[in-house]
């Protein structure tokens, strides 16, 4: 059940909120946990094993954190105060085992598809695995206290706004609000505004632009012209952004409706001047996770240049891996590693000095890197790249090409593409933030909401693009 579906918007959400608002705090947490499991149940077509899996994840990790706490306390009693702050053997064992369990399952589901057919990745496992491991590691590092109430931990992990596509919320970010939260009319007002904006991005922009990418696949990469190849990958770049950004905004908005504050996941990434900057502004909570739990523990940039590049390589290969079990995601991670390494070696100074150059550079690299991301078949990827860069070689250009294709598709999608490009600039957010309490802004948002609902009603809606990961 995606947020941009009628079932969610007109059935699940109103019924959920109606009960949720009437309950006292403890009841709210229980209901949030249960309601999220119902939400998840719809997403996995009531596959009972996947439901057991997520509940087991809550229970086991709850016990693991408690176990670590227990070891720590015993250790302190036995060894006295001087060892306080140091991790005992028991804590290490528990952490290792539980991390093995969490990542083992993730790996199993991501890669089992190679060996056994008909294994479908349980929705959201990439996200909830990262979230729960961040909790465990934070407990181990004493950055957060172990949760004493399994309901609260369950509510944290399964909370439906962020369950299937992030943002990857750290436990410390919701710790307080799980215990005490005030739901105010202002908060709800803002929540609805964010939600509407996200819904508009998703339904009115991403879905429509996605059709162009779909059209190109229907034609087949062999039969598209070079201009159409560029137009297509531009459309894909805009689609993946508004899809994911829209979804994250909806999550933030829903969070506000429930009384939580989630971290931002995007900050106009397409306005970045370098790939390094891009990945600080794109899927921020994922980058943060890799930095905090992989890059820095590996030594970050404190162990010399060579080691730093090695650490970067690990992070980017893992990032590629995380996105999917296909070789092209590894290639994509590798490509990002190379680009970011070159930037670190000095290019970034040039790009940041001459901003126009930086924008042009990113305007070229963003679609190219998404092409590697989007096309999972190596042969097809090659065909597409020969279309993008026909001067490389003629092998892929033998097919019949409809010479009017660019003209045809720009006529259909031109307005959507232009709107997408404008919305990338952050202009929409600026206008929104400045006048969000004005009546006309509310009316505008209401129109956006109406238009999105109309599209959904007419069945022009697509399944959420990022669902697979």
């Amino acid at each position, binding site marked *: 059940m995606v947020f941009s579906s009628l*079932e969610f918007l*007109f059935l699940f959400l109103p019924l959920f909120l109606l009960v949720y608002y009437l309950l006292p705090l403890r009841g709210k947490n229980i209901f949030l946990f249960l309601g999220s499991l119902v939400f998840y149940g719809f997403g996995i077509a009531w596959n009972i094993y996947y439901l057991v899996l997520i509940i087991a994840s809550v229970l086991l990790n709850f016990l693991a954190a408690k176990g670590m706490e227990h070891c720590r306390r015993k250790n302190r009693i036995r060894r006295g105060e001087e060892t306080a702050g140091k991790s005992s053997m028991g804590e290490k064992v528990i952490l290792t085992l539980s991390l093995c369990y969490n990542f083992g399952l993730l790996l199993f589901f991501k890669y089992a598809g190679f060996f056994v057919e008909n294994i479908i990745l349980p929705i959201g496992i990439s996200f909830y695995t990262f979230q729960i491991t961040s909790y465990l590691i934070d407990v181990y590092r004493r950055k957060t206290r172990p949760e004493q109430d399994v309901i609260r931990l369950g509510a944290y992990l399964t909370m439906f706004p962020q369950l299937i596509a992030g943002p990857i919320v750290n436990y410390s970010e919701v710790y307080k609000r799980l215990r005490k939260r005030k739901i105010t009319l*202002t908060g709800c007002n803002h929540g609805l505004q964010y939600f509407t904006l996200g819904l508009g991005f998703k339904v009115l922009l991403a879905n429509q632009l996605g059709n162009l990418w779909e059209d190109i*696949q*229907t034609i087949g990469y062999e*039969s598209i012209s070079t201009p159409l190849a560029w137009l297509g990958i531009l459309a894909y770049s805009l689609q993946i952004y508004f899809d994911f950004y829209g979804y994250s905004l909806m999550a933030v908005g829903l969070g506000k409706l429930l009384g939580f504050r989630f971290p931002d996941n995007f900050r106009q990434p397409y306005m970045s001047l370098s790939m390094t900057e891009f990945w600080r502004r794109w899927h921020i909570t994922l980058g943060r996770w890799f930095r905090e739990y992989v890059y820095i523990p590996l030594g970050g940039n404190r162990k010399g240049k060579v080691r730093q590049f090695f650490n970067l390589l690990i992070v980017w290969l893992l990032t590629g891996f995380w996105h999917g079990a296909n070789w092209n995601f590894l290639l994509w991670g590798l490509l990002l590693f190379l680009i970011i390494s070159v930037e670190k070696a000095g290019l970034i100074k040039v790009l940041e000095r001459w901003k126009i150059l930086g924008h042009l550079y990113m305007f070229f690299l963003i679609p190219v890197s998404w092409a590697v991301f989007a096309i999972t078949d190596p042969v097809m990827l090659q065909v597409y790249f020969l279309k993008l860069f026909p001067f490389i070689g003629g092998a892929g250009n033998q097919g*019949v090409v409809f010479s009017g294709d660019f003209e045809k598709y720009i006529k259909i999608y031109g307005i959507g593409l232009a709107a997408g490009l404008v919305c990338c600039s952050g202009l929409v957010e600026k206008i929104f933030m400045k006048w969000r309490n004005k009546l006309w802004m509310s009316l505008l948002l209401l129109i956006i*909401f109406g238009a999105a609902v109309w599209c959904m009603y007419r069945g022009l809606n697509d399944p959420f693009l990022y669902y697979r990961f």
Partner: protein
Amino acid sequence: MRKYHYLVLFMIGFLVLWPFMLHKLYIEQAKNTETFVEQAQAEGAAEPESGVYDVSGGEAQEEENKEAAKEGSSGQTDAEQETEEDTDLTEETEEPEEAQEDEEAEKELEPEEFFQDTLFIGDSRTMGLAEYADIGGAVVFANTGMNIYRLYSLKNAVHDQEPYLEDILAEKQYRKIYLMLGINELGYDAEQTVKRYEEEVLKLSELQPEAKIVLEANLHVTKERSERDAIFNNENIDRINGNIRQIAEKHGFSYIDVNEIFDDETGALNPECTHDEVHVLGKYYQQWADWIRENGI
């Protein structure tokens, strides 16, 4: 109050929309179960109201479906019609002699002359043919979602061609007219569609008396698509193709079935030839055109 504008407006809007959306969800739910039952019975009799989405686009079709449903509510039941067709199909298999003579004359034409003074009429598949195959000299009238009910009201979407069929037909006398329609009509009442198809073909031959009219069987969809779709499935496509064939035989038109080059062993569109399970990839349209040439029809 100023701070809660949106909250208030949203609530009002939401409450207004709510009953409609719940109704829609209820209908969808009912339709899903209906689809399930239909598939289980392997019947596939198309309900006009359930043709909400269109294989090849065409947004305004839903309304059209309902209109057509009103028009074609009388007549015999689908089941009766079905048995009638089956017997007809087994009886008549040979082409009329006249048509064979024509074919031989066509075979003598040079490949580049083959499609001269030819008109193609069709939906998005025929559009693909116009865009991705070399059918030098042919005029094409096609659009996504084109159907037999809207032949004269829908605009031509093919590059550099006259917008309306009326003008295209008035422009000149064609030698050959190929017609591939029928899949977008699957959501309509089947009997009504066949009747209308026959009328439109006769009208065509009246307007273009010298033209040889070639009725094309509709391309199949993939097995996977066919199995999950209560309307746009191969069973229904085969049924309408059978009807088209009967019309061809009845009035002495030619009938061709290009499915043989794109079908897999199960008699469905080969999944390797398509991405969206409905249209063949751009690179395959040339095969279709070549097939027509080689068969000399």
